[in-house]
């Protein structure tokens, strides 16, 4: 089943020349299905409240939506600022081909995070309060400001890409503002990635000592940095399949090696932290937290390091494994901090939390929406740098400038 949708904008004659396309494949239908289900659940949540749609309770005020949509979403979208740092600030031009794609993923990730947050918070219509009522002692205050500003910055950054196709007049102004936006766009995520970790530092005595440490912000920051490469590998593989576009192995390999460097730093810090706080016994107690902690480190950090610095990373398979392991490691880490780390404390008097089906639907739905949006944008804008499809010529003819900017 193949559907070509052509949207002709009626806004003005100028727009009529722009053609939008979106090809529906079975996978995209699945995404659409999940997304619709999620929207239905979200509507129910807004009408009937959180109690009707989630299993959250007074012992577990934070659950899947916070951990998956926010903690994880922000971390996995962390590839954007890392790539921006490497490409634009450090000028490792070799990685330029993946820059736009990584930053788009990041943007979509953040939009999902913001959407997820709006659904997650109780009084969503009050989301703007922290702008006027400054709770500046709160770590969340920083997270809030950084995430919201960064999302705006990212949208502007993307506008720079977007104006290549629509509202072309604004392009050169956006382009001029790019360096400032890039600097802010790297500063903000480094701040809030670490702050997300610091959030849990306030829960003194509640989080398992394996995860509760003064280094929490550093760990969160580092892991959000190194997971970026993993995400780019996975994403480029998937996008490569869907959009018939492949990123060259040396590019990915270089990225993976940078990421593995950060991992080594992370691992060393973890070990130092354990030595300083004397939590070795906890780590090797082989109860649930210990097993989770060890597998998180082994599969999510140590094995990826080995892959990165061995010949394994010169094959696509090796790279994919690196990506899968790294991403799973960070997913595990974020879930561990909340669920494994706090489970014992929060369940001590019989509390319990298992996410409701509706919670999973919303989380998956948000991801589906992001995937659909990515596919749409990647098909219609110059994201992947190389349009392998037949429509590329089409656009190039219409817009002469396009060809020159697309490297």
């Amino acid at each position, binding site marked *: 089943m193949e559907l070509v949708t052509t949207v002709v904008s009626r806004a003005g004659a100028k727009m009529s020349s722009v053609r939008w396309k979106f090809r529906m494949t079975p996978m995209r239908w699945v995404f659409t299905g999940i997304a619709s289900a999620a929207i239905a659940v979200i509507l129910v949540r807004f009408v009937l409240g959180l109690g009707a749609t989630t299993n959250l309770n007074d012992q577990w005020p934070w659950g899947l939506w916070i951990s998956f949509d926010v903690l994880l979403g922000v971390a996995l979208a962390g590839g954007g600022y890392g790539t921006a740092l490497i490409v634009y600030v450090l000028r490792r031009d070799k990685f330029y081909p993946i820059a736009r794609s990584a930053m788009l993923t990041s943007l979509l990730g953040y939009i999902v995070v913001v959407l997820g947050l709006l659904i997650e918070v109780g009084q969503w219509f009050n989301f703007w309060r922290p702008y*006027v009522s400054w709770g500046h002692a709160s770590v969340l205050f920083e997270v809030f400001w950084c995430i919201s500003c960064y999302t705006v910055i990212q949208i502007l950054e993307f506008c720079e890409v977007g104006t290549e196709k629509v509202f072309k007049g604004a392009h050169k102004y956006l382009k001029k503002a790019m360096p400032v936006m890039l600097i802010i766009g790297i500063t903000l995520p480094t701040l809030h990635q670490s702050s997300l970790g610091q959030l849990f530092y306030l829960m003194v005595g509640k989080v398992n000592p394996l995860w509760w440490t003064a280094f929490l912000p550093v760990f969160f920051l580092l892991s959000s940095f190194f997971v970026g490469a993993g995400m780019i590998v996975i994403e480029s593989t998937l996008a490569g399949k869907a959009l018939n576009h492949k990123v060259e192995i040396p590019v990915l390999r270089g990225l993976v090696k940078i990421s593995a460097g950060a991992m080594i730093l992370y691992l060393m810090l973890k070990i130092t932290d354990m030595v300083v706080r004397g939590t070795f016994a906890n780590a090797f107690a082989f109860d649930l937290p210990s097993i989770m902690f060890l597998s998180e480190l082994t599969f999510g950090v140590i094995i990826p390091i080995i892959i990165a610095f061995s010949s394994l990373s010169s094959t696509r398979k090796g790279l994919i494994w690196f990506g899968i392991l790294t991403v799973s490691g960070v997913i595990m880490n974020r879930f561990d901090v909340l669920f494994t780390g706090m489970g014992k404390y929060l369940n001590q008097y019989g509390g319990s939390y298992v996410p409701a089906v509706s919670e999973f639907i919303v989380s998956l739905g948000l991801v589906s929406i992001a995937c659909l949006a990515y596919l749409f944008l990647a098909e219609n804008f110059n994201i992947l740098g190389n349009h392998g499809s037949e429509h590329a010529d089409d656009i190039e003819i219409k817009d002469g400038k396009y060809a020159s900017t697309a490297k």
Partner: protein
Amino acid sequence: MASKVGKVISLSRRSFLKFVGGASLVGVTLNLSGCGEPITPDKAIGGNGWMPTQYNAPGNWPTSVRGRVPIDPENPAIVRDDQKCILCGQCIEVCEKIQSVFGNYELPIKKEFVCVNCGQCIQWCPSGAISERDDVNKVFKALADPNVTVVVQTAPATRIGLGEEFGMPVGTNVQGKQVAALRKLGFDVVFDTNFTADLTIMEEGTELVKRVTGELHHPIPQMTSCCPGWVKFVEYFYPELIPNLSSAKSPQQMEGALIKTYFAEKKEVDPKKIFSVSIMPCTAKKFECQRPEMNSASKELNDSNVSPDVDVVLTTRELARMIKRTGIDFSSLPEEEYDKLMGTGTGAGVIFGTTGGVMEAAVRSAYYLITGQQPPVALWNLTPVRGMQGVKEAAVNIPGVGDIKVAVISGLANARKVMDQMKAGNAPWAFMEIMACPGGCEYGGGQPRASSPPSDEDRNRRAASLYNIDAKAKLRNSHDNPEIKQIYADFLTAPMSEKAEELLHTHYVSRADDFIPKKSEENKLY
């Protein structure tokens, strides 16, 4: 192309300025409207309600006390609906000042709340938050079971209380209508607790004579044991005075034991299929029927399948509720008679329902038991023991014995004073009648609630009604009751015979270990 670009710029600049201006305006407005300002107490959630202090207006009800007594959720007799409680403190007032229970123990408590189940707090509660534990459904269930013989007994005082629930004046005697209503509700047999009140007089009177003559090595004065609230009070606070309590059961428990033995035998009913209900003016009776000792029929018949002597106790209010729920037009009911065998009572039995009544009845029969002659007419109107004073004394001259000094007490705070006096060795009496509730059973915790706070005026009207029944009764001495004569002839042989001891007498347990008694007066709770 250039002009187009120019348009785009001017448009975006204008809209940019618009946006910035708008945003700042919104920000300023929000700041002016208080966002970002420190919040003040009135912004906090809650705090707009009502407190008992605001209820402190002059009126009939003393309102100086606030808070409330603790009530165990497992309490067999009394429950409280928190939603109706207004913390006026009336329950504390009555429990501490009138019944001397609350505040007469040291803190911390050990395990259980000290409660004698008297139910006076129910009568004093102005909002109806405190009430009896509702057992109506258990009775409806038994009534609906065709295999079960439901036998009911009614206490002396319910007949002069029940009418108030149906709009009749205080103290209206509705004995006949009550019987008719019970039959209409489907009770198979309707007996009168007045019968066992008479029986109690025989047993207790005989016991008293034996104590006085020294045949029974139990101390004098002998104290009545009809009132389960009072009995529990002694078990809690004066365990050393337990030997002074008469070993005779209360009329309710005597009737219950006999229903499952004597009645079952006479009418050839399977005691296992008898469901015994009693209608009482009392909440403590709900506790009494659950005492492990109150299982004589099962013991006597040696059959563990026989349920306790009294299965369910209903208060007068609960009976009224049953009648109302069933839709019976109470006031137009005909007058009916109690069933024979254990349904006949004398005037002496009916005055059990008021303070001094047991004493008066006992004196009449004691005269007979000691002298073998009918008491003189003067003893049919023993005024010194009538009335609402908390402690009343009388001396009755019985030929051959001389003056017998007796005391009548109602209200547990009064009882406490007299008990302390007794412990100090100052007890000139031979026999003492003590009732937990001021005024006796007629204003017990299970009687209809008046619209006004409990008053001696209402107590006197109810008591007058009981005395009126006594005055008009054909038989006014317990020993003259033909059914009493019959039961001794057919079943029990004689007062305090072996069988009577087994079925009609009981023992008591000390509850002194349940709490720490109050040490001295200055250690008041508040």
